[in-house]
């Protein structure tokens, strides 16, 4: 059964979708949501009955209402897009720089000596502790925020890709030599695809770190962005807005993680794990 599915999938380059879930097991995934739903319900009841002061914590209904009104008056979309642009530019920069550095140090001994040692030292510094320095250097515009994100996200990209390149099976490299592959071709067809799984692991870490860096950067000094919106709300004791911001961060983290997972199963279709999951 799975054998033919694999055959079909491999031929079309697409994956077959299984449509044969019995009713009971269809409900199984939702069981996991039972506890969170109960907790939210309890929270709502506690707020409505006055058990929880709404000055400390807004009720779920209030959060939804606030989220809706913030969306309608344009505050949330505007701040969200600012935050998204920052995270995306920082992450993009981290990817470019991290991949380049990993290639340099992964593909040549000289490059490793030059690049790896300083990065390993820099890596041990807590990047968040550099916020004051970044503000001194780059002021309070977009630059320090994007650079903070980029710096934090670069390390997992670099470290994982470097490890991946170094861990390529020497037998495969030998095989490439016996087939007469040029150096460039060996890098393109053997080394880079072989290191791709590690790069994607690094990317997943990098995405998580990006949000973390962004939260800090936007709360320390900013006049826009989700973090700023939350800090602003603090001054007016608007816990509902703060919680809306938290929820947005949470959703962003979840969505970006899903995106990287999707990327993984799209790019690593050759790994039996992913194929097994799809069929």
């Amino acid at each position, binding site marked *: 059964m799975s054998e033919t599915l694999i055959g079909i999938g491999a031929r079309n380059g697409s994956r077959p979708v299984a449509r044969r879930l019995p009713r009971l097991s269809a409900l199984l995934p939702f069981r996991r949501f039972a506890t969170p739903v109960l907790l939210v319900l309890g929270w709502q009841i506690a707020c409505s009955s006055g058990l929880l002061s709404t000055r400390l914590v807004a009720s779920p209904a209030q959060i939804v209402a606030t989220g809706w009104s913030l969306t309608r008056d344009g505050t949330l979309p505007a701040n969200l897009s600012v935050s998204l642009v920052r995270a995306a530019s920082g992450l993009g920069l981290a990817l470019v720089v991290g991949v380049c550095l990993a290639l340099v140090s992964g593909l040549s001994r000289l490059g490793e000596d030059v690049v790896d040692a300083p990065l390993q030292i820099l890596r041990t510094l807590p990047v968040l502790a550099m916020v004051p320095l970044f503000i001194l250097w780059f002021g309070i515009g977009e630059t320090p925020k994007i650079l903070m994100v980029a710096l934090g996200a670069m390390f997992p990209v670099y470290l994982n890709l470097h490890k991946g390149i170094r861990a390529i099976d020497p037998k*495969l490299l*030998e*095989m*490439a030599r*016996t087939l007469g*592959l040029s150096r460039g071709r060996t890098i393109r067809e053997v080394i880079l695809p*072989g290191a791709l799984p590690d790069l994607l692991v690094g990317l997943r870490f990098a995405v998580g770190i990006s949000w973390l860096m962004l939260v800090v950067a936007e709360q320390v000094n900013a006049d826009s962005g989700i973090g700023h919106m939350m800090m602003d709300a603090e001054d007016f004791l608007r816990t509902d807005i703060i919680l809306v911001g938290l929820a947005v961060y949470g959703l962003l983290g979840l969505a970006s993680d899903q995106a990287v997972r999707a990327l993984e199963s799209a790019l690593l279709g*050759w790994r*039996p794990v992913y194929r097994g999951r799809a069929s």
Partner: protein
Amino acid sequence: MNALTDPRPRGADEAGKAVAIRRLTRRFGDGPAVLDRLDLTIAPGEFVALLGHSGSGKSTLLRTLAGLDPVTEGTITRPRDVSVVFQESRLLPWKRVWENVVLGQDGADRRERAAKVLREVGLGHRIDAWPLTLSGGEAQRAALARALVREPQFLMLDEPFAALDALTRLKMQGLVSELWLRHRCAVLLVTHDVDEALLLADRAVVLEHGQIRTDLPIGLARPRRHADPEFERLRSVLLDALGVCDG
């Protein structure tokens, strides 16, 4: 590297040799010589089986011939177009089987060429499969196809069937014999299996103390059968040369 010279296009020099090894010496570090002034010639289209104890230097010799190890002492003459099949298939897991077969080859007809040679090794139905979904025997077939698609004048096989079960191994031996009869390239097969050598090769050589100590022509008619009395005789000669007492 300059010790590797390319002879005439047909893969044979004037004396009719595809491969000629002269006084090849190889040592690792300061250790004893693994190959010690070794001489060996292989004629075009000849099938030679290389036997020897574990650690006697068979793989070292093969790697040197394949250009993976440097020639420091002695000379090697070999055709330019050579292919190697190792004990493990060494397919790139991220390329489909057919892409693995024509890896590093150019031209618009890559896929057709891959399909043709894959059909030849009995893998025509798996050309679009991912290598990690192949069985051990199928993977070795694909590796064989990758070696053959380059139309080598000299094919090196380093224990290509050692990791396969007995039944698959028999099938693969039959396949190699068939392919060799069709392509007629010179072959050097490293094996531990005396029967395999006797089934396939024109000549069996035994590597011992860094040199070829036994050079045994196998004049049996093909296809060969174990029951043949001459087969039995050659078998005990080879086992003797390997220092194994045969019953």
